[in-house]
């Protein structure tokens, strides 16, 4: 922070606040319409959302557990966008990270490692697997000029079927049923932060990752270069920045962030590898949510933290609405899109009028 805000800063902040207030108001209006359409009472429904997500310790822990992958996934998108790269492959990278974690957990099971060694090793396995999954689109973009948008999307499906295979095939737990593996060893389980209500340490790790990204973007040379490429690739290139090198930094870091989310989901939350790790089909999945959270959070770690928190609350709250009035979880997608489009609208309006 550099001293007091200038007049211009203040005007900018006020405009921003007004934009988001308008967006939130529109999204709430849409929410009210949906609730009415499904025959619920608006007052009861809004109360249910807050009560379910924040009103009890159990609900709060659930919200935190959702906050963790949402934050990491959105960071993985926001970080890429800041450097002009579109990462639509968060789901696949989460799956890759989950596979990495599970592979370490099952592979080193016989060594009887204590958890302070085993858990970080497993998470490292997940981060590396995620980074690898992110490196593929990076390499293809640099080497063959293939858009990372396509490759990340296609790799989502590849990772999904890979998990499908592992969870039904070699690692399957016949007692648990289809598409689920045997539980990972107890010493590979991430310790709990809220032991009674089932909240794991993941959110703290995610916040640390957000702080790391913030530091990298604002205080390091590579962060400066990434921002330069994102703002104006042509100018950056003339300024002597090697864009290929930046791509090969951005994409694996994006993958590593989502991979971390996947590792934490396995180690902390599910404690097994299963299909539907990133959300059941039709319900909001972390990958698609992350894209818009990154936009809503203005591609900045702090904004992303706030937006991810809001949508974690909405996800948990909408789960309970699904049970009580049958509103599908996918409604959260619609709120998200309404907020994004409103923000884009207001900002474009302002841009056009100046």
């Amino acid at each position, binding site marked *: 922070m550099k001293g007091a805000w200038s007049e211009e800063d203040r005007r900018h902040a006020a405009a921003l606040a007004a934009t988001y207030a308008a967006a939130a108001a529109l999204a709430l209006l849409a929410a009210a319409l949906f609730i009415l359409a499904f025959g619920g009472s608006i007052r009861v429904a809004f109360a249910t959302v807050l009560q379910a997500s924040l009103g009890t310790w159990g609900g709060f822990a659930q919200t935190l557990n959702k906050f963790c992958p949402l934050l990491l996934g959105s960071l993985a998108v926001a970080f890429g966008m800041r450097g002009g790269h579109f990462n639509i492959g968060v789901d696949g990278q989460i799956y890759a990270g989950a596979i990495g974690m599970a592979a370490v957990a099952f592979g080193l099971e016989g060594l009887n490692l204590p958890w302070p060694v085993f858990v970080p090793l497993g998470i490292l396995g997940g981060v590396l697997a995620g980074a690898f999954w992110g490196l593929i689109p990076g390499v293809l973009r640099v080497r063959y000029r293939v858009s990372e948008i396509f490759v990340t999307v*296609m790799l989502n499906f*590849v990772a999904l079927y890979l998990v499908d295979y592992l969870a039904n095939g070699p690692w399957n737990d016949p007692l648990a049923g289809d598409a689920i593996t045997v539980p990972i060893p107890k010493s590979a389980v991430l310790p709990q932060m809220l032991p009674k209500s089932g909240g794991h340490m993941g959110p703290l790790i995610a916040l640390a990752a957000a702080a790391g990204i913030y530091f990298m973007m604002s205080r390091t040379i590579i962060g400066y270069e990434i921002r330069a490429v994102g703002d104006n690739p042509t100018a950056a290139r003339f300024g002597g920045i090697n864009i290929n090198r930046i791509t090969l930094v951005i994409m694996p870091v994006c993958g590593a962030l989502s991979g971390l989310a996947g590792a934490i989901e396995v180690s902390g939350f599910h404690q097994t590898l299963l299909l539907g790790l990133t959300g059941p089909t039709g319900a909001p999945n972390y990958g698609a949510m992350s894209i818009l959270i990154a936009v809503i959070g203005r591609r900045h770690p702090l904004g992303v933290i706030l937006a991810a928190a809001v949508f974690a609350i909405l996800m948990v709250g909408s789960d309970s609405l699904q049970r009580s009035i049958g509103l599908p979880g*996918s*409604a959260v997608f619609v709120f998200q*899109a309404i907020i994004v*489009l409103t923000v*884009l*609208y207001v900002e474009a309006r302002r841009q056009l009028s100046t």
Partner: protein
Amino acid sequence: MGFVFDISLLQLTMVMMAPLIIACLGEIIIERSGILNVGIEGIVTVGSVAGFLGTFMMGSPVLGCLTAMMAGGILSLLLAYFAISMRANQIVVGLGIFVLGLGLSPLSYRLAVGVVQSPPQIKTLSGVPVPLLGNIPYVGEVLFRQNILVYLTYFLVAAVAFFLFKTPLGLRLRSCGENPRAADSLGINVTAMRYGACVVGGFFLGLAGAYLPLLITGTFTDNLVNGRGWLALMLVIFGRWMPLWAFLGALLFAYVDAFQFKVSSLPQMAKAVPPQFLLMLPYVFAMLVLVKVASGAEAPRALTRPYDRESRE
């Protein structure tokens, strides 16, 4: 290896090809005008639910297809408004539309159908062999013993190719995607052309969605589209923004898709190769193809660039 050229496999290929190429044609029209529509997966998804519900509730596949086209047109119009009039970043708006479509589809399905024990079904269209042509051995059996929507697909591929490259209007449309300023100076209304392309392209995207329940499943499920929109977006590059090349690409992909479908139903194969690896095939194949194709492909030059009459660039 008689299996590889099996008639029923090739017939299935034509069915799988239809929704891919229809979506691809819509995207080609839109991109040729200079707008990139990344929301295609979401729009096709909305088309699939609209097509299903329209057919289910009004009892007519024709009305189902029209409903889907309307839905696709409306969503595409929304994209057009942001991309053209508001000059917003087309990729960001497109991603917003993508997620909007993902959200709207299960929501409208639930709203219309409610919570039911067994999901409602519509009848998938049955084949109508073309007289004479359908009797040509092999080729005729593959191409002309199909249902009416597949025939419509053949027609639309030819029609869009003709429109883009042989009509004055098509030339004007392409000029808006290549050099909107030059087009404007010749009296072409760039804004109107781009809006028109988006809406007409949206009709195609919606129709492509309707093809899925009508041709393949007979029901609506949340993962019905399953990346086909993204594949179509990729086919545009594969086809270098030309309908006929995209058509060949769609055939190739549909073949891979149909192949994995048929192979996984063979008992002796199911033991040898886990089905999940067969399911991966189209997506892995897509990446390999992109690597081969992308570096030579020339996009319309003004793609993703909003046009501002008053700017002086």
